[in-house]
């Protein structure tokens, strides 16, 4: 139970197309995260699955049954909303019971399920309070509880942590992961925060402008992003990109010239690049080494952020901004020069259209 399949799902609001042909299969028990910048269509996609929006085209199937025309109530899904959407005029207990009463469930079973969920989420002391009397974190638990008591085919979570403060967000994230492990239910989780996506997901679906950019496990996305967008979106601080032109290709290596005239050597890994191609080289800030090696790329320091455990260096390489995260503490001053080495770094190559060139890692 809990297998969801989308085939060519599209959605338009009037003349505006917001979802362009989504194909996606979510396995039973999987925790899939939809991530992307705001306006990418991730929430709309979730609402289509929920049944709160009707897809304009395509097919949506739950457990093999096409549910395009099934109303939200009959899809057996439960949703946790960004604003929690707790009924403010009902007590926590009534909030949890409301959905169950609507299915004409016997009172005894309702009580049993509420008790169980309340124990699981540690919200027993607040059962008779109104949502207005609870803190943000407590409301969040109630919202999750309201979904749990329904024993749904799948949980849909729409940015459930975005209204919490940073500290609470971290701990709740861990609890959500534990909950998923415990319930082993299908969950679809929407967020714009790539850290949440990385830490929670079995698989991440990166969306942009209504299209899927890449689907994969968190590490797949991190290690071999399919395009410049995914590369820039996953990972923090985000990946550095250097524009360049290929000057020569020989024995699995290519020499690329950066605008400032520096040349870097890149392992091609069988990618098809010819001389004169304009490419983008991506490198994560953590993979750049700082040194005085004469072979390194000369860079001037613009700003140094000493975080203690690591040092974030904002540097300038012939007009292109580069971010370097160096472990430990470094005594550097803005305005001075230093050399950056990419020798040890895994490099990501993208063509002019932003697509990844080497698909072997």
């Amino acid at each position, binding site marked *: 139970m809990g297998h969801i399949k989308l085939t060519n799902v599209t959605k338009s609001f009037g003349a505006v197309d917001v979802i362009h042909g989504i194909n996606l299969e979510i396995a039973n028990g999987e925790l899939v995260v939809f991530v992307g910048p705001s306006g990418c269509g991730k929430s709309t996609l979730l609402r289509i699955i929920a049944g709160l929006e009707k897809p304009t085209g395509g097919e949506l199937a739950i457990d093999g049954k096409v549910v395009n025309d099934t*109303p939200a109530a009959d899809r057996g899904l439960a949703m946790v909303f960004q604003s929690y959407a707790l009924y*403010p*005029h009902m*007590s926590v207990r009534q909030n949890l019971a409301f959905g169950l009463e609507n299915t004409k469930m016997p009172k005894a079973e309702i009580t049993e399920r509420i008790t169980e969920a309340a124990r699981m989420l540690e919200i027993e002391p607040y059962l*008779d309070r*109104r*949502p*207005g009397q609870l803190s943000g974190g407590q409301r969040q638990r109630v919202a999750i509880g309201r979904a749990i008591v329904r024993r749904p085919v799948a949980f849909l979570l729409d940015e459930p942590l975005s209204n919490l403060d940073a500290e609470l967000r971290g701990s709740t994230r861990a609890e959500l992961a534990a909950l998923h492990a415990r319930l082993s239910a299908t969950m679809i989780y929407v967020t714009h925060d790539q850290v949440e996506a990385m830490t929670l997901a079995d698989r991440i679906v990166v969306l942009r402008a209504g299209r899927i950019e890449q689907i994969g496990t968190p590490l797949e996305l991190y290690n071999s992003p399919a395009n410049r967008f995914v590369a820039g979106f996953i990972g923090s601080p985000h990946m550095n990109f250097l524009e360049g032109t290929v000057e020569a290709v020989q024995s699995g290596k290519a020499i690329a010239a950066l605008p400032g005239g520096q040349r870097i050597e890149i392992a091609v890994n069988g990618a098809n690049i010819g001389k004169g191609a304009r490419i983008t080289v991506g490198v994560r800030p953590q993979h750049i080494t700082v040194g005085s090696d004469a072979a390194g790329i000369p860079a001037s320091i613009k700003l140094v952020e000493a975080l203690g455990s690591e040092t974030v260096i904002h540097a300038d390489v012939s007009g292109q901004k580069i971010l370097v995260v160096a472990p430990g503490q470094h005594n550097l001053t803005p305005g001075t020069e230093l050399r950056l080495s990419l020798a040890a770094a895994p490099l990501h190559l993208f063509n002019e259209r932003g697509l990844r060139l080497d698909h072997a890692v």
Partner: protein
Amino acid sequence: MKADVPGKTGLGIGEVALVPVRLAMGLIDAPLRWLQRVAGISGMAAFFLMPNMLIFGIFILLPFFINFAYSMTGSTALFLSDRTFVGSEQYARLFDCRNYLDPNTCAEDTFWTAVANTGWFVIIQVTLMIVVSLVTALILNRELAARSFWRAVFFFPVLLSPVVVGLIWKWILQRQGLLNFSLYGFGFEPYTWLNDRNWAFAATVGVSIWAHMGFYTLILLAGLQAIPKDLYEAAEMDGTRPARAFWRITMPLLAPNLLVVVVLVLIKAVQIFDEVYVLTGGGPGTSTLYLTQYIYETGFAAQLRNPGLAAAASILMGVVLVVLTLLQLGLSRSSEKKGARK
């Protein structure tokens, strides 16, 4: 107003009283679920809208359109099908005057008397109403002790029914009334005010202001209180003289509210009827006969009632009201926009 989170649970008796309501609501849920399945969610929207629209259509929209047909028919028959078509005859009759400035030269002289009376009433009453409400609002906007009490004092008559208002003042203005009693103390002889054409007219103006000024004061006061206090403090820091602050800060910022109030007062003044009908009955003679009473009497009360003529007169009044209402909607929209820009 905004929806916010209600405080506590427990209405006690209220909850008990709600039990039958709950049962009834629950009972109709099953057929409505069926309806929802058949008609879909947009069908339910139509279902929710229907009762209001049905009543609205039958009792407001339909009469509105029938009114035009009515105004083009003659005879005293009630139903449209029994009435004879006369074209624009009713309008021609209303406008049949040798001299429009003199009602006595008109075929339908009472109509023109009513128009003239209403015109004078509107001019005088609206002016005085605005002045009185504005001054009261300005005074209530000062830092007063017990402001809500004073606001309530001026608001009190607003809720009274026009009939009660009319009767209270009829009682006060009669020969043995409070007014004569007060004046008697200053050596005046008792006078029957409502038998005097001019005093009766003045009474209708005064009484209608007495009854409704609290409402407009309230709107103006809300407008005044919405003006941020720090504007005045800033003006003071700039060395602005209070007079200048009044004309350059208070008035411009209050202007949108003031305009809306002016139009609201106008709309109400054109339709004046209830309290005047009870107070003077339109008299003495026709000195306080206003348009609505003319329509009412021509359509229902007169010996030779003529619904067609009443309908024609009411359409003429309707045209004036539509213009005024459009003005009001336009004004409140532009003031909303200004508010949003703030």
